[in-house]
């Protein structure tokens, strides 16, 4: 019972872990390179959701001190900043991975990693 209620209360953690696992699964099991990259993005999204939800406060506002200095409940900026960085990293990783896939496609004419492995084996 405890576990279930814990899950329901922390549904966003649960959701993010599910997304993370889906992403990882796609990334590691699918042979299509583009799908791998998509899995990578899904996985990262899961993590992003998880981290952002740690710092999120219901009804909180952006953490910028207002001019009159009223006490406002701020959302913790650190996870958001981390995730902002994470997103940038994710974009660059995706871009880099995509460019590699383009290169691979030029060499092998396919984006399927199994086929590429097969071709390499035959080459040897």
């Amino acid at each position, binding site marked *: 019972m405890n576990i279930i209620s814990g899950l329901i209360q922390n549904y966003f953690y649960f959701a993010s872990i599910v997304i*993370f696992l889906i*992403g*990882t699964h796609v*990334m*590691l099991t699918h042979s299509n*390179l583009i799908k*791998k990259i998509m899995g*990578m993005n899904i*996985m*990262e999204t899961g*993590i992003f959701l*998880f*981290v952002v939800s*740690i710092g999120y406060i219901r009804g909180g506002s952006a953490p910028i001190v207002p001019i009159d200095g009223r006490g406002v409940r701020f959302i913790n900026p*650190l*996870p958001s*900043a*981390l995730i902002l*960085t*994470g997103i940038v*990293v994710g974009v*660059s*990783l995706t871009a*880099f*991975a995509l460019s*590699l*896939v383009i*290169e*691979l496609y030029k*060499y*092998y004419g396919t984006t399927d990693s199994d086929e*590429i492995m097969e071709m*390499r084996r035959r080459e040897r």
Partner: protein
Amino acid sequence: MNDPTVHIPVIVICTSLIGAFLAPVLGKYRPALVGLMARLIAPVNALLLVILLRYVDAGETFHYYMGGWAPPWGIALSVDYLAIYVALIIHLVSAVILLYAKDDLFGEVRGDLHRWYYTLFLLLVAAMTALAFSHDFFNIFVFTEIATIAACALIAIKPKKECIEASFKYLILSTVGSGFILLALALIYMVTGHFNLTLVAQNMGAAAEAYPLNIMVSLALLIVGFGVKSALFPLHVWLPDAHSSAPSPSSAVLSGLVVKIYAVVLIRIILTVFGGEVLAAAPIADMILIIASVAIIAGSLFALAQTDIKLLLAFSTVAQVGYIYMGISLLSETGTMGGLVHIFNHALMKTLLFLAAGAIIHQTGLRKISDLDGIAKRMPITMAVFSVGALSMVGIPGFNGFISKMYLATGAFDAGKPVFILVILMSSLLNGLYYLPIVVRAFLGTNAEEGKFAKDELPLSMTFPLVILGLACIYFGLLPGSLLELVRKAAHYLIAV
């Protein structure tokens, strides 16, 4: 703090960064200057680090706060012996590699990409240095990613399909690793509320009590995440392809430095942040110890089966990373020293071996070990230096590899686990089994086709770094006193906290 010495860590990182981003612009108009600049930056930085070391020697180790903001707001750099030691290794070794790269690159990388090669290389150096100094999970994550992308690009820059494929494989697995790391950081942040290592460490005790599950899961995720990046044994699958297909200077820097920096970061986190209580609660250290032993033996066995010289070296790296993990997870002072000193020694040896292999490939285009019969007649200096590296790997006394094995073995005994001495000895034997035949072949073998190696000896810019590394291997094998002093302090720092 008006003493300019305290800024050295930042300056070192910044000069590499500036160099990295000057390179593409400069390379466009003055291509000759780029290499020169890159080759100047690393030694100058190493010099600065030595000055910093003197400074730290005189007083306490300290933390440097970016923008003058103390934690929990600011980003901190920890200026301690471990960081300086690792940073010194990075800059010294990359200085040598950059020297070597001057002529070798022409054979492996398209001419118009040279400036980008230097960009990536310096970026990687900057990221690794920053990782060494980082005292903040945030920074650790960011620079891990920068280092990963730069490393992948350093492989993919060679226009061959093997490189692209290896790079892709590396990228995908590293991304999984990064994901794990990020998740772990989030879990730690969740229960401790900080990213700064010191503050997290302070809150760790209470957090571990309240949320043991979070701490354990994050620890596991960290080990897997950094384990992938540092090629800890079952997670090493990307390494052989990546390190063997890359251009030789890249292989050298990847094998010699990059995998280790992640190991250092992981170890720093585990030992200084999680600390004794968490380690006592779960047999983490023992698990790593066993994994490392398996890595040592399995890596060597895989290496034994290789016919391609660079693949062999790459698998040997898997085994050697095991040494580093083993040394530190022994949790005795000598063991930790062994692990840390092996970071330096292996950086020297493996860089040397990769560069020597690169020189052979550059000269003759031969990669298969069976083709190397009698090659020492054509390339005596290269092969002599290669032999130094090989003997060092085997752990012949008088060469630096012996020092680390010695310390690892005494460390295993100190830790009350003499079984692991056998692992080290066994792997020495295996190293002998796969390194010595190459040397024997090269010097004593006779190749059927005379005049097969018709080219001349190497250019000076390639011979010189090799010889420097070879001499360093012997020097630090015979007189490691000052090195060990530094390592002892670094180990003390790790164990004491």
